[in-house]
């Protein structure tokens, strides 16, 4: 989780990613961010987030995104 928060905070240092649950709904993340996040997650966690998982629910909070990463890690 620490590593994920680092990735997110580098994109938006002003956002409290530990508590925010509306990253997509409130337009905090944009398409630039989504692509950066997917590529960083791939580098750091060595998991590929494929299109079927690139949906608003998985990116609305750091918690949801982390849960996705864990799920993908288990599958590999």
């Amino acid at each position: 989780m620490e590593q994920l928060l680092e990735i997110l905070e580098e994109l938006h240092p002003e956002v409290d990613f530990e508590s925010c649950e509306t990253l997509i709904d409130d337009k905090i993340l944009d398409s630039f961010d989504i692509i950066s996040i997917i590529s960083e997650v791939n580098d750091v966690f060595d998991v590929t987030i494929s299109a079927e998982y690139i949906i608003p629910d998985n990116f609305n909070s750091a918690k949801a995104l982390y849960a996705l990463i864990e799920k993908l890690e288990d599958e590999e």
Partner: protein
Amino acid sequence: MQTNVIDYLNEIVHKVPEKLAFSNGEEGLSFREVYEQSRSIGTYLHNSGIYKEPVVVFMNKHPKTITAFLGIITGGNYYVPIDSEMPEVRIGLILENIKSKLMICDEETIEIAKKFKFDGKLVTYDEISNEKADDGALQEIHDNALDIEPIYIVFTSGSTGIPKGVVVCHRSVIDFIENLSDVLEFNENTVFGNQAPLYVDAILKEVYPTLKFGATTYLIPKEYFMFPIKLVEFINEYKINTLCWVVSAFTMISAFGTFKTVVPKFVHTIAFVSEVFPIKQFNRWKEVLPNAKYVNLYGPTEGTGVCCYYEVDREFSLEERIPVGKPFKNTQILLLDEEGKQVPKGAEGEICIRGTSVVLGYYNDAEKTANSFVQNPLHSFYPEAIYKTGDIGRYNERGELEFVSRKDYQIKHMGQRIELGEIEVNVNMLDGIKQAACVYDDKKNKIVLYYVGTVESGDLAVSLKASLPRYMIPNNIIKLEQIPMTSNGKIDRVTLKNMAQKK
């Protein structure tokens, strides 16, 4: 001979008045509605005494935004579209330059606009689009219009920190639309899926051919470009068959395995602009849409957006680059060396554009205009301006033009044209910064900022967001004890770039 872009609309409204012209999926306007509302806006401008003036359009992406553009032209003026998410500081620079008398907003953006330092009047689209059209006055405006008069100004990144306003006239746009339509074979059955924001010139490709042929354009909401499956589902739902997008929008779909779930099944024409299409991703598109027509489009805003094209006619290996190809009819490319002489066959030179596609210049900026729009150095017999793109190109053995690199620090990032100098100027203006240098890591497609100062990198990013658009914010911000310098005292950008790529 057609001399006014509004003639596209004036003719098509009689042929297919009730057909859908522009839509965002939820709301749309027919050609009749576009025609009537644009004439109302033209009449409003006439009644307000605004003629041959720049008029700001500060609206969210919506079919009405396009109609506002057309209304401004109908009234004999030119539109200046401004991104509603651009930081206030940057909008201030633009407003100060153009000193417009009127800004057209929507219900949402007018609240933001009220905070601007703006001496002109603020109105909403809905307030001015119901006026009864004054046919006599509009006819007179139309009769007196010249094809060398501007129809829009779009602003692009400037290396000194001040955005440059590129001014474009009817003639250049008509020349472009006619050529583009021939190359991409648009017709009345074309259904465009628009990706570009409405404040850039990239929308010419959809807006005017839609009017010319009575086609339909769907403005795809920006949020869809975050979620590839939703995006392709949107494309299928509206039977979109033609995509003129920046490369990063195409790769966003293909890179994440979207095609395993869903394929854009109606698409038959794919034009890509702004960046080099990585062959690996390009091949994934070709695999799912083997019969589509694929065209690479190239050109700067100063060449009316696009002035060269290459229709893909062969396989490319992974390390090859798809060429720029050749100019449109009525445009010529010169490859010039430092002395302004044409380079020998096969050698590299600066890509310079001559022809009707060369725009009028930079608005209210004679100095920058004179630097980039210069007398054709091949002769001095009569005035003839060519545009120096700053791109280095060469012809390959097949006679196709290829892009090699940039002469300066302009980059293409996520389809946007950015001067690294503009980022540096804005960083240097902040308190606690001693020195700053920006490089572009073109392997990972990241803007990397190095700086020396007392500010923390997180705070620096937050401050920058107040003055620069989102796409210009560096992806990595790294604090250094000192910036490496070359022996003659300049910032050592080569070392910095190597540092960025090693990270």
